[in-house]
């Protein structure tokens, strides 16, 4: 029996490794294609040469000052959204949870607008603080949502949670638009675009703003994979195994909110990635968090970079926000899941 378990474990690990390697190769390909697309196209060979410092100064400027920061922002945000979606789904045992649908993203938008009204600029050195503001906004909207979705006798009801999230998202985005109009017309247009999910962070400062959040939170969440596995089994089992269920859940949810808010703060309000990535990852790598979390991160990265590249390149000269591309694919998938899960 024990031997069998060990074998199964080994098999799973090997499978997760294979899947991750394949996805990693795919991600590198997409990133290279993405580096290659834009108003001035660079041949793949030139991209390589420039990466290693052999390009002309013009090529270096295009690659390092324009394309690189944007793609790194997109990559990091994709990772953040994928992981945070997995944590939301795992710790609330709700397979439909997603920071976009739950209205956490619009809370982040509110935080962003408050930041703009304080500092008047989104590119200066203070931009490092942007994720902090969006985090506060996200926590605020999360509190409102959980307050309304919580039932004294039955805890958080999954379907009501989604419904309340959708409504809170509508309300907070209305307030955000109003505040942005109060600032000036340009901010108003920016907010509308942000809500549609367009990747706007294009400078290195935005990379530096986002990087620490991802670099700290992702490993911390990964170290708690066991706790997430136990949550999936249900609260009673989690209690009997000796977990501080409520505390653990709050900590995990807090980190998921932080991760998604930091990601959307510079990438725009992209929804549905946090929903789709964990589901695909679970199919590919099995239900254990320590195997499928990295896969979910890679898939999140892959989806967002692809969506941004597609939105930028296919529809030239105008660009379509990445959020639109993601919603066109992720939305139907949500419907499919909604109707597959039993009433």
């Amino acid at each position, binding site marked *: 029996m024990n031997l069998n378990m060990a074998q199964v474990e080994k098999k799973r690990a090997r499978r997760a490794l294979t899947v991750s390697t394949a996805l990693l190769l795919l991600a590198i390909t997409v990133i290279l294609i993405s580096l290659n697309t834009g108003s001035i196209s660079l041949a793949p060979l030139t991209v390589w040469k420039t990466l290693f410092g052999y390009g002309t100064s013009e090529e270096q400027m295009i690659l390092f000052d324009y394309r690189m920061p944007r793609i790194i922002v997109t990559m990091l945000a994709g990772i953040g959204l994928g992981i945070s979606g997995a944590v939301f789904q795992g710790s609330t045992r709700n397979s439909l949870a997603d920071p976009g649908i739950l209205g956490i993203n619009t809370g982040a938008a509110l935080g962003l607008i408050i930041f703009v009204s304080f500092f008047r600029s989104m590119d200066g050195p203070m931009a490092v603080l942007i994720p902090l503001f969006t985090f506060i906004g996200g926590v605020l909207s999360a509190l409102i949502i959980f307050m309304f979705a919580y039932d004294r006798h039955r805890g958080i009801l999954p379907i009501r949670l989604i419904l309340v999230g*959708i409504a809170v998202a509508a309300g907070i985005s209305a307030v955000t638009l109003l505040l942005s109009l109060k600032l000036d017309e340009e901010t108003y247009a920016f907010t509308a675009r942000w809500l549609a999910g367009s990747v706007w962070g294009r400078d290195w400062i935005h990379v530096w703003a986002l990087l620490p959040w991802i670099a700290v939170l992702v490993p911390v969440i990964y170290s708690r994979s066991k706790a997430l596995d136990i949550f999936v089994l249900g609260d009673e089992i989690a209690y009997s195994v000796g977990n501080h269920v409520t505390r653990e859940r709050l900590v995990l949810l807090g980190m998921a909110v932080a991760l998604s808010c930091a990601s959307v703060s510079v990438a725009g309000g992209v929804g549905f990635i946090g929903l789709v990535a964990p589901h695909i990852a679970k199919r590919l790598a099995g239900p254990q968090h320590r195997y499928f979390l990295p896969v979910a991160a890679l898939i999140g990265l892959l989806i967002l970079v692809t969506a941004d590249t597609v939105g930028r390149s296919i529809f030239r000269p105008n660009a379509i926000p990445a959020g639109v591309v993601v919603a066109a694919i992720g939305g139907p998938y949500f419907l499919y899941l909604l109707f597959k899960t039993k009433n």
Partner: protein
Amino acid sequence: MKLHSRILIILWFIAAAAGLAVSIFLAVSFGAKELTLQTVWAAVFHYDTTLTPHQIVHDLRLPRVLGAVVTGMAFAVAGTVMQGVTRNPLADSGILGVNAGSAFAVALCFAIVPGMSYWGLILFSFAGAALTTVFIVLLGASTPGGLTSLRLTIAGAVVAAILHSLSTGIAIYFALSQDLAFWYAGGVAGVSWDHLRILTPVVIAVVLWATVMGRPITFMSLGEETAVNLGVHTNRIRILGLTAAVILAGSSVAVAGSISFVGLVVPHIARRLLGVDYRIIIPFSALLGAILLVWADFASRMVNPPQEFAIGAMVAMVGVPFFLYLARKEGRDL
């Protein structure tokens, strides 16, 4: 007792009509340039094309305020009828994605055939609204065991989110002339007399038609079995009712964009005040919806003049708390 309640109903109707008249006058008088009531009165009844204040009233204020009145009626009655025939207290043409389907069709028209006539636009808008409705109804019907109203609401909201996102994409891609906010949450600033000439008769006719259907709708709102026992062809009324809602929502979205929550909030207030008889609630909702949108439009131009704020977002600020309250109440039966 019977007489007593009838007088009460008449009084409420008079109050609502008076409230609407006052709202219209206030909304026409105040704005970026304030006008006296006399000027407004003169501009309406003795229009002089050479006077600037008269032109402001006649060409700018009046069409937009009347646009708010007519679309407010349409969205409110669409919501009332939908809530009645689907027995879903959270039904609203905006929340269930009907408006979004319509707005998506309109965005497509703007992008592919710029300068399409208003009639053409309205027809495509209907088609968009009708297709979305059919899609959502089929989704509900195809699920084994049927869908709870909460689940159907979520499905509608997600369909709305997808279509909404696509419309925004089209608007950004084609750099459509309207403000992005129009696609985001609608507005009646662009309503012209030409629009009103087509929209008003359509909306009034459908509201009257819906009122005539009030009796069977009332029975249906009391329960499927009750309605069948009382001799209502439930499927027929459901289809007719949804058709009315689609026409109302479709024609309004074509001029004012997608405005949610009017159809959600208004019927609940109407029921609270006047009971469950849809023959009375439907026309009363029309009046309340008109008042609500006139004020929402008024507020959306006054918060930060001379800029305009999205009217749909204005309504959402009232509608969302209301929705949360309802969802919490409904959640008990989950």
